[in-house]
């Protein structure tokens, strides 16, 4: 493998050999902190001088050891991450941050912390409602989180450290957003698979390197004259934690293009930014509590009307669908995913409202189900085609 590779070739390398860079850095004495969900406030990790690293599962690796420690009623994606972790795939980690996002995370927290036994382990208790009181609470909780990191690295995290980290992460988000722009032409200039791999590769790198990689990708794709894909239905993928390019690959294999998403490893994580004008902790509280649009966060229905409620809750889906001119959407969820699972009927109703045909897939986390998905997706494409 060419270590000097650039752009998409580098993406491919980091994607296939996930964690290779973090392993190198850890060997150099850097501290790598793992996380699993968009709710983990990364800026704090960067500000402390550590490297945030997003754990991935592996759909090709059967869950074995993990199942001996954790019940199988936990969401399979999360079980796969856990399985890899206890099989020492991420042996280079110095710590983990697990936010309060879903029952699978909260309930298995102690199992994770004991099984991995890392020097640093922190739970960040994100509130599930957005109110003045929850902001106050979350501010305090972020301070606790900050303190825990300070104790771990043995130095103070100053407001300047934080502001710097915020700026870097915002930059990263701007660049990622720019990559999305290449999805707008029909057919798109970047495939869904490539974009997924790019963002995943980025989440395995220190933020500065991630920024550089995005620059390379932007440059490379910017020079493309022709789309790598044929013309086909434009698909939006709606869902939670999709940490592989397989799904997009499958959809594109069947003649469609993946042009938009709302997923955690995509726009949910990369689009919302931190307000650089506010005091750092407050600004972080604001982003992670209010700006991240996830079913985990309860939004009150103030209208007494179902239609208005879903319009408010899912407006971002509508905007994205319009902005990227989608012809159809796929809600892809794992079994046992509580926050998303309860929203399926409401989301379905919303897609009807905005006249976007929808396919709902509930999956396990395994390469073994790809054949089953193939028939369903192909039939859906035939239906909307």
């Amino acid at each position, binding site marked *: 493998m060419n270590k000097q590779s650039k752009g998409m070739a580098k993406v491919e390398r980091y994607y296939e050999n996930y964690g290779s860079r973090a392993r190198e850095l850890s060997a150099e004495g850097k501290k790598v902190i793992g996380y699993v969900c968009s709710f983990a406030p990364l800026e704090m990790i960067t500000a402390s001088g550590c490297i945030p690293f997003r754990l991935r599962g592996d759909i090709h690796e059967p869950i074995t050891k993990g199942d001996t420690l954790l019940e199988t009623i936990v969401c399979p994606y999360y079980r796969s991450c856990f399985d890899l972790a206890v099989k020492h795939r991420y042996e280079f980690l110095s710590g983990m941050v697990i936010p309060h996002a879903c029952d699978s995370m909260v309930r298995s927290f102690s199992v994770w912390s004991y099984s991995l036994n890392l020097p640093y382990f922190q739970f960040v208790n994100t509130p599930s409602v957005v109110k003045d009181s929850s902001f106050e609470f979350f501010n305090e909780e972020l301070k606790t989180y900050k303190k825990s990191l300070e104790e771990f690295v043995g130095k103070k995290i100053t407001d300047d450290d934080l502001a710097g980290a915020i700026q870097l992460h915002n930059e990263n988000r701007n660049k990622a957003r720019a990559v999305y722009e290449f999805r707008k032409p029909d057919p798109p200039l970047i495939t869904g698979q490539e974009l997924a791999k790019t963002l995943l590769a980025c989440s395995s790198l220190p933020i500065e390197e991630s920024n550089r990689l995005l620059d390379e990708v932007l440059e490379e794709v910017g020079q493309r004259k022709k789309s790598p894909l044929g013309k086909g239905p434009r698909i939006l993928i709606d869902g939670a934690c999709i940490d592989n390019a397989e799904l997009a690959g499958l959809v594109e294999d069947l003649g469609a293009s993946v042009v938009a998403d709302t997923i955690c490893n995509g726009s949910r994580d990369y689009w919302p930014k931190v307000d650089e004008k506010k005091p750092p902790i407050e600004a972080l509280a604001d982003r992670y509590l209010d700006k991240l649009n996830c079913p985990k966060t309860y939004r009150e229905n103030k209208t007494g009307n179902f239609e208005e409620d879903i319009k408010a809750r899912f407006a971002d889906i509508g905007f994205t669908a319009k902005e990227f001119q989608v012809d159809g959407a796929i809600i892809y969820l794992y079994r046992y995913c509580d926050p998303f699972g*309860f929203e*399926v009927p409401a989301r379905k109703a919303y897609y009807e409202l905005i006249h976007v045909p929808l396919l709902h897939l509930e999956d396990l986390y395994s390469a073994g189900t790809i054949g089953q998905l193939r028939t369903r997706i192909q039939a859906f494409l035939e239906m909307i085609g």
Partner: protein
Amino acid sequence: MAEEQKKRKKRKTATKAAASIGPMVKESITSTIRAREEGKQKIAYTFIVCQHDEILRAMDIVPVWTENYSGICGAKRDAERFLQRAESLGFSRSLCTYALCGLGFDQWREELGEMPPDAPWGGQVRPDFMISSGQILCDPRSKWYQAAQQFMPDVPIYNIDLPYPLFDPKRDHREVWGYYHRYIVKELRGLVSFLEEQTGKKMDYDRLRELVDLGDRTWNLIHETYELRRAVPCPMGTGDAMNTMVPMCFMMGTQEAYDFYLDLNKELKEKIARGEGEVEEEKYRLLWGGGLPAWYALNDFNYFNSKGASFPAETTYRMVVPLYEMDIPETNDPIEHLAWRWLGYWTFWYEKARKRPGSEPDVERLIQYIEDYKIDGVVMHEAFSCRTWHVGLIWQLHQLAKIYKPIPVLVLGKEGKKEKKQRELPSLVLESDIIDITSYSEVDTRNKIDAFIETLESLRRARAA
């Protein structure tokens, strides 16, 4: 076959108190239907174990415990049609089946404009508002009512965010619980304003204080009453406790609940005096160490009993300790007290767990019961649809095994010499669901129980030898 199943015999209880629960629950459901017809009181959907019972009672709200109703459908083996309905709406069967059953029921009732045909015990009434309690306990508690608004968009929700700090072996939870407390207090005050707005009445804080006091006294009484079950033979088992949990979960802050436990207390003392156990010849004492029960299969407890096994204790539905043993600050403000009660309840075992490396609050609780109640084995139930109470059970058993291993039990050896023997607790994990009967197999379950009893028996012999 549905008919066959419905015609199952009523479960035999060991106590009169447990036997009186059935009519009590029925009456509580009927009373909500009456309240709806009379229209004088406001009706609220809500969840148990949220420390807001007294607030509701003080405001004269009629609570409809939606988990309760789903449980009733499950116990009557009539949840399937509601679950199917929820599934056809697009909800996955892997989600909390209480929620699915409730959602299926609500959707049906709203579609018909009246109760679904043959609704168990008359049905679950339409609420005036819903009180969610999201945050740390479970996702369904914040997503269920939001989903229900699809069929009842005009019914408002107040979502109380109720966090507690998760256990961290390296940190004293009291370092952070100050701001947790402040937040919860604000959330509960927010609930009070919401209720005031909905009812057009002001909270009478004197009344609240009285009710909180009553709730506290009930809490302590429950604890003392349940502790009576340490007696050998044990006068009341978990099978009955799954009934006597009703006043604890659904009637806190009422005189009726207090009186119920007073009666139970008396009954247990009488039984103990007579040396009367739950089972005729008590051979094994088991701990129900985790998991909500399979409501349609409570008869399995009788099956255990028939083999001489009694369940003196369970971790499900229990006040951890009396309030006076909890290390929580004193306050005269009832709302502040409720918030402390919440934090005290969830963090009670933290300190103990911190002192034993590798332990965990839930494990500490198991150890305490195992010792106090002279337990021979642990039984857990893994219900597939609820992560809250069922994730981490394997882990707890692992920890328990490690912790128990080194505890030597001194026994008299062959030549009258004292020998060290390792004490190990066998465990049994039953798998099914709280109300989804399709996940349950009686033959399998009973096979497992048989094998478990044989295990206990062989250990008993080994100890005796």
